[in-house]
């Protein structure tokens, strides 16, 4: 079973909790990792800043850096008005980042390798943009689909493309994160299984197994980068989409 690269994505029910209609909602390994991520983030931000020191220690400094990093990302892409979504973007960024990085620990489960999770996160962004856009601008929100300075005869085409690209946002937003994490973990597992396969084939095999081992080490470093990068990309796209809700005129 160690050589099955798909097994790591299995959802395992740990214990049943409650029922919604006929569906049993169990506490799963995925749920455990989500709870773990929330606990890690909360501990990082609250316990890390317990001393409230003027000259921060390591953990507090990192917490402050993360705060400033997300705040600057929002300010530069969505303006100061975007800061009302700061907790939302911060929650998305830290949740995805933490879940991705925990998933890199061997034998750990990666929550974001399930399309339903990333789709839900992307949909929450999409709905926030829609609700806030219409609440703030009313029907003027449709200006988003009508770029200024476009000749009238190609306007219908442009509007069609704009609407289509707007509607496809949650899809690309969710699939990007999901596919990156899934592909990375499958690749890691495949190369890792080569090590065990070659390693069981005698001395020469063991020598050969060093190659996939080196590859796994390099891939793990790459996946660490991807884990951060995908969380950042998700957050910055969220900011860009929110900017559309805040300033619908192009």
């Amino acid at each position: 079973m160690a050589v099955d690269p798909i097994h790591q994505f299995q959802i395992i029910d740990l214990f049943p909790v409650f029922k919604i209609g006929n569906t049993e909602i169990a506490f799963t390994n995925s749920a455990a990792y989500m709870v773990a991520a929330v606990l890690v983030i909360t501990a990082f931000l609250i316990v890390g800043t317990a001393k409230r020191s003027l000259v921060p220690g390591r953990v507090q400094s990192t917490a402050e850096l993360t705060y400033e990093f997300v705040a600057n990302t929002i300010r530069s892409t969505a303006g100061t008005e975007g800061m009302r979504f700061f907790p939302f973007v911060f929650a998305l960024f830290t949740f995805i980042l933490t879940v991705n990085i925990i998933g890199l620990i061997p034998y750990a489960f990666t929550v974001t390798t399930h399309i339903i999770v990333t789709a839900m996160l992307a949909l929450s962004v999409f709905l926030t943009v829609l609700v806030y856009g219409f609440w703030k601008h009313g029907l003027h929100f449709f200006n988003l689909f009508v770029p200024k300075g476009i000749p009238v005869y190609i306007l219908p085409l442009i509007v069609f493309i704009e609407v289509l690209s707007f509607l496809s946002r949650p899809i690309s937003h969710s699939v990007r994160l999901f596919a990156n994490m899934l592909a990375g973990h499958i690749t890691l597992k495949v190369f890792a299984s080569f090590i065990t396969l070659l390693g069981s084939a005698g001395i020469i095999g063991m020598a050969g197994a060093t190659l996939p081992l080196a590859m796994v080490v390099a891939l793990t470093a790459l996946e660490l980068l991807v884990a951060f990068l995908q969380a950042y990309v998700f957050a910055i796209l969220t900011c860009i989409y929110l900017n559309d809700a805040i300033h619908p005129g192009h």
Partner: protein
Amino acid sequence: MATTAHTEAPGGHKGTFPPFDSHTFASQLVWLVITFVLLYVVLAKVALPRVGGIIAERQKRIDDDLAQANSFKTQSDSAIAAYEKALADARNRAQSIANDMREKQTAEAESVRKKIEDQFNVKLADAEKAIAATKQAAMANVRGIATDAAKAIVERLTGKAPADTAIDAAITDVLKR
């Protein structure tokens, strides 16, 4: 799809790619909503205001310190300016006092000199007057002496006293020359 998993998860069905197994969607959604909303609330209500507060507090402290340093600098600048002004004032005053003093002393010396000169002039005039008076007196005496002498000489030479008028005429004649 090759599956060698012995552990048949209650939610997971054999042969289905786990991320696309819709039987697990409901539980994942429920837990995602629960944990994410919990995370959002904790972040929005507690964690982020806390971190933001720490950063703002530090920024305020830095700004306050800078403002204080600035005000101290302004104070020291104005103190230096006041000191230099006082110094310049004192120098000016010293100069003016010296000038006044010099002028006063010059004037005093001048007046003293004038007074002494005047006194000298008065004394000089008195002396000249005295000299003139003495001279006049002397000149007056000369005639008498000459008359007496001439009378005695003539009397001795001729044995007889000459007439006063003749002697007077002769002396007047001599004094005229």
